[in-house]
């Protein structure tokens, strides 16, 4: 069923009791052309673009839990593409372009709200880096503006630009096309659209082994039995090392907790996204009125989906300096997700030393914004058995050649 105002009206007549399920829950087939391990946003987008762009529909997405139960539903939903380096700007802006047409493309409202993203500068180094990044973005066709402190105040009136602050706001970069999107709609929307094109989405199906024959992948072992496959794609974020190890591949990623938190719902006070790498917090307001906040990773390796309280304390301190108005807002809940961080803070979308095995990981703290572009480029890589020019620089062998894409400290927010 196509979602539209007419389908809402039609279903209203039957008291909304006859909406069809959004995707099937089929039994696994004995064999697929492509198995995607990991039913997060990136995995589901990969399956969708395999079907849509490459006509490969004999595809299964294997998810050990449920859709929207991992990082897809744990992030702070920020979407932007104002990265410094050419390679990053290209793939993140491809992603943003896909975001801009996504609701129509998959017939599912992902509630993209291009409300503008501010990246604050608090010292002379930040200012120079910010202006440089604005210029680099414009050369790459990515919209970017530099605002001075008064411009920041005009764009976000509740922000404190006092010169007396410990880290005063000296200016900010602004990407007007940036904003937020509804995170679980992205998972559900891609799942529904992929399912409609014939993709099997298998939840509660944990991969326990990757089968190989003479350096070529032949299938996977799962908690629901052995499934054969011509190609297997790993898209498992925080568990990338664990799954890659099933095929004896060592990965250059480390898994860390990344925490986020929301406040009680309040009236609309902030209609943009504010990020600060220096005092280390980012803030936006959800449609329900909650302030959504996040910051950097906990320092230690973890698979525990929770972090240390002092990290939250630190980011709330930063938040209150920027927004004294929030001093009496109560925080409602906090949580953690496990993100896999690369040494150069750039992702890996790549073939592997095993024939027919592909990996998409290392998105670290910034994977949500990349969901459509990541899936699009990864689908191309799987279908053609070679990377698209957008993701060729993000190959696994860059750690051998030394051609790193060093976004640490360059990506507008500390990691």
């Amino acid at each position, binding site marked *: 069923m196509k979602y539209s105002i007419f389908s809402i009206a039609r279903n209203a007549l039957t008291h909304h009791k006859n909406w069809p399920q959004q995707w099937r829950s089929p039994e696994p087939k004995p064999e697929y052309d492509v198995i995607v391990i990991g039913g997060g946003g990136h995995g589901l987008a990969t399956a969708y673009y395999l079907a849509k762009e490459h006509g490969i529909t004999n595809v299964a997405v294997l998810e050990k839990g449920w859709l929207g139960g991992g990082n897809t539903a744990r992030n702070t939903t920020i979407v932007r593409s104002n990265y410094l380096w050419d390679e990053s700007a290209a793939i993140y802006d491809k992603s943003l372009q896909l975001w801009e047409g996504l609701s129509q493309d998959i017939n599912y409202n992902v509630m993209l709200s291009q409300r503008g993203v501010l990246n604050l500068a608090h010292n002379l180094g930040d200012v120079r880096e910010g202006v440089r990044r604005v210029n680099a973005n414009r050369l790459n066709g990515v919209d970017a503006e530099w605002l001075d402190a008064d411009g920041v105040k005009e764009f976000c009136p509740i922000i404190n630009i006092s010169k007396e602050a410990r880290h005063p706001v000296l200016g900010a970069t602004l990407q007007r096309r940036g904003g937020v999107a509804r995170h679980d709609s992205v998972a559900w929307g891609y799942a529904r659209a992929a399912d409609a094109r014939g993709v099997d989405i298998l939840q509660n199906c944990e991969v326990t082994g990757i089968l190989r024959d003479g350096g070529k992948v032949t299938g996977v072992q799962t908690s629901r039995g052995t499934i054969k496959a011509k190609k297997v794609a790993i898209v498992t974020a925080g568990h990338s*090392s664990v799954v890659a190890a099933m095929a004896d591949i*060592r*990965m250059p990623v*480390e898994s860390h907790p990344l925490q986020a938190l929301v406040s009680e719902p309040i009236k609309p006070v902030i209609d943009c996204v504010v990020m600060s790498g220096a005092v280390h917090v980012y803030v936006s307001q959800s449609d329900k009125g909650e302030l959504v906040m996040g910051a950097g990773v906990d320092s*230690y*390796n973890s*698979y525990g989906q929770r972090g240390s309280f002092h990290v939250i304390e630190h980011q709330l301190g930063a938040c209150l300096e920027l927004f004294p108005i929030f001093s009496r807002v109560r925080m409602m809940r906090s949580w953690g997700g496990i993100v896999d961080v690369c040494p150069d803070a750039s992702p890996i979308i790549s073939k592997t030393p095993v024939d027919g095995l592909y990996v998409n990981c290392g998105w670290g703290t910034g994977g949500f914004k990349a969901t459509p572009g990541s899936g699009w480029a990864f689908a191309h890589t799987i279908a053609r058995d070679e990377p698209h020019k957008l993701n060729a620089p993000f190959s696994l062998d860059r*750690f*051998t050649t030394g051609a790193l894409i060093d976004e640490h400290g360059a990506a507008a927010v500390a990691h």
Partner: protein
Amino acid sequence: MLNIECPWCGERHETEFHYGGEAHIARPESPEALSDEEWADFLFMRKNSKGLFFERWCHSNGCRRWFNVARNTVTHEIVAVYKMGEKPPSLVKGGKS
């Protein structure tokens, strides 16, 4: 918040420490003799274990000395603390490495 037992200062809060990542990665004796793959393996590839993990911490706001910790990366339980240069203890609890 982790409570970490510094071998010299005793138990302190995590905020006094800095993390040093995976332990027991020995710098190759003769780096110039390595292939690019071997060098990349030393420089970038990590175990990133789920379960028991051997890692380094520095008591940077205390005695400023480095030491090793055996910790479970799922439960965050610290199962052993031992000094730099010592071999990792053989542990039965804390899961597989």
